[in-house]
């Protein structure tokens, strides 16, 4: 039973345009959501997070939106750059003493020059 789902395996956008990556979850008890970025042959690196009590968090070109009623979050990248080409994972976390993250399947973003 996949609690965190990224239903789009891949996305291709033109440089300068907006990239929108989507993520759905099933457990309403999650307290935080995180986005990680992964380049080939490297480990994932943290990108941005959002608390379940917020509906938006922005950091430079990256903005994450949370719609709790729809159990849906999205990552917007504006403007997209070729260096943004990577696999993006969303992850969900409950506020407990384990810090466990539950990851989605990932979406491969290709930004074309």
């Amino acid at each position, binding site marked *: 039973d996949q609690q965190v789902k990224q239903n789009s395996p891949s996305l291709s956008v033109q440089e300068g345009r907006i990239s929108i990556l989507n993520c759905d979850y099933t457990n309403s008890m999650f307290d*935080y959501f*995180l986005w990680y970025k992964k380049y080939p042959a490297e*480990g994932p690196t943290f990108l941005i*997070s959002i608390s379940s009590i917020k509906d938006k968090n922005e950091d430079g070109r990256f903005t994450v939106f949370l719609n709790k009623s729809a159990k849906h979050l999205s990552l917007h990248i504006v403007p997209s750059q070729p260096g943004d080409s990577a696999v993006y994972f969303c*992850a969900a*976390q409950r506020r407990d003493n384990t810090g*466990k*993250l539950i*990851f989605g*399947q990932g979406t491969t973003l290709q930004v074309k020059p």
Partner: protein
Amino acid sequence: NAGVTQTPKFRVLKTGQSMTLLCAQDMNHEYMYWYRQDPGMGLRLIHYSVGEGTTAKGEVPDGYNVSRLKKQNFLLGLESAAPSQTSVYFCASSLHSGKSYNEQFFGPGTRLTVL
């Protein structure tokens, strides 16, 4: 600071062989995690540790054992490797206060093939 390092980077095993993957972190983190990444499956938690001397099962623990004898090291063992354990393995560590989001820092991964 080296961050999170993993040894080895690549390994090929035959079915039934055993091996140990080593994860080391120099950030004085309490929490450490082992994941496997398979195509279309994302990252799945194998085992984790909330401090030196402690370990706990994650989502997919069968066929693996772990040990956390020292705070900076987290070992993942395969006692009898199976082809289904062919995967890329990632180790991660974090401070985790329990009061906010848990930013985990990942190592570069170990690509394991079991023939």
